């Protein structure tokens, strides 16, 4: 995988190469070069399968990381390409013209992280959360427990200390 990384590095600005397994590696690419890089990987190096697109919220560094995982059926290898976005203005180019299924992932990322993909078909439609009005839910600054306690009514819970409870139940006169 290192050879592949070196080959790509001749044309694209890559960094942070990380070989996780013999057939799984990651590298971080520039945001502006991503579409070209993906097209190049797909058409030249035969990484034809888009396995998934996912995002990570780096709250402390104030940025989002999007990972595009590609798979090569010939050599059975995976290559993950990471892209860093500014958390305050999370906009990314759409890849639905390269892989049709990309728009589903992008719709999900838009809903869960609030990352926008202009031009991706149906990206603004709700995917899982119908009628959601709060902030994007997978962002780490969204406190789900707090939201849940404020929004939904919880069933009251009885907790009893076993010793005193049994004492009260068995010997009520004491």
């Amino acid at each position, binding site marked *: 995988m290192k050879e592949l990384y070196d080959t790509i590095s001749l044309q694209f600005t890559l960094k942070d190469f990380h070989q996780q397994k013999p057939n799984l590696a990651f590298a971080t690419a520039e945001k502006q070069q991503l579409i070209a890089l993906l097209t190049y990987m797909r058409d030249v190096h035969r990484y034809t399968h888009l396995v998934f697109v996912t995002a990570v919220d780096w709250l402390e560094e104030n940025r989002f990381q999007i990972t595009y995982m590609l798979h090569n059926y010939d050599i059975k290898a995976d290559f993950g390409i990471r892209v860093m976005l500014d958390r305050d203005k999370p906009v990314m180019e759409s890849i639905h013209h390269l892989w049709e299924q990309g728009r589903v992932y992008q719709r999900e990322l838009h809903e869960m992280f609030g990352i926008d993909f202009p031009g991706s078909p149906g990206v603004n439609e*709700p995917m*899982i*959360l*119908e*009628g*959601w*009005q*709060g902030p994007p*839910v997978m962002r780490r600054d*969204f406190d*789900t*427990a707090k*939201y*849940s*306690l404020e*929004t*939904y*009514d*919880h*069933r*009251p*819970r*009885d907790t009893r200390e076993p010793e005193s409870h049994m004492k009260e139940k068995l010997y009520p006169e004491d």
Partner: protein
Amino acid sequence: MSYMDKTTGIPEQGITPPIPDTGEMPDREWRKDDKTLTNAELTLEEQDWFCDARPTPAKPAWGPVEKFYNWARANSLWILAFGTGCGAIELRPLVTARYDISRLGMQPRPTPRQASVFMIGGYVSIKTLKRIVRSYEQMQGPKFVVAVCSCAINGGMYWDSYNTVKRIDQYIPVDVYVTGCMPRPEAVMAGFSKLKELILAGKAEGQNLYAEKFDWYKANQKQVIKDWNMPDYNW
């Protein structure tokens, strides 16, 4: 399995209102008058398609006849399984040779119109709640609800989830809860036999409860379902 347990602080009908049930509902734009709903969230064309009548409580028949009917109802429970979560998997063993609920006169039924027991199998997200409300309202009464798994009772492991309602009995009336994560098929069958006892005793009047406290149930539903794009009462 617990039926409206006193120890959990739930009153006999199994409900503590999040909105105080004063009879005067603050939010009334979806009610035209005492008998008519507005269906205001639908488009004008869609309003023509749906009924705008409120549900009304149905009177039980004359004593002994009602007892006979209840016996028939208890011995012919047709289940509409709503597989919202992992609990749905528990219905499959029930109909196979090992547990075989058909010997008790039960059978799974694919359409809400013909079913009499609504079995909710697991956690209920907001999106699912919409479907649950629609399916429940489409069932023909007397209808009974059995909620399976701890998620259906108090949210279970999803207690802190942003998208899961914690108490189904605030949105539709529930007759029997079956605890467990997940309950064994035996537990589910114990729940059904408890439901049978309730029906035979004439206590499973969830349909009438829903019709009587319709305002309260609707207000609760509308409180959590933000994009209400369905009729106010589905026939």
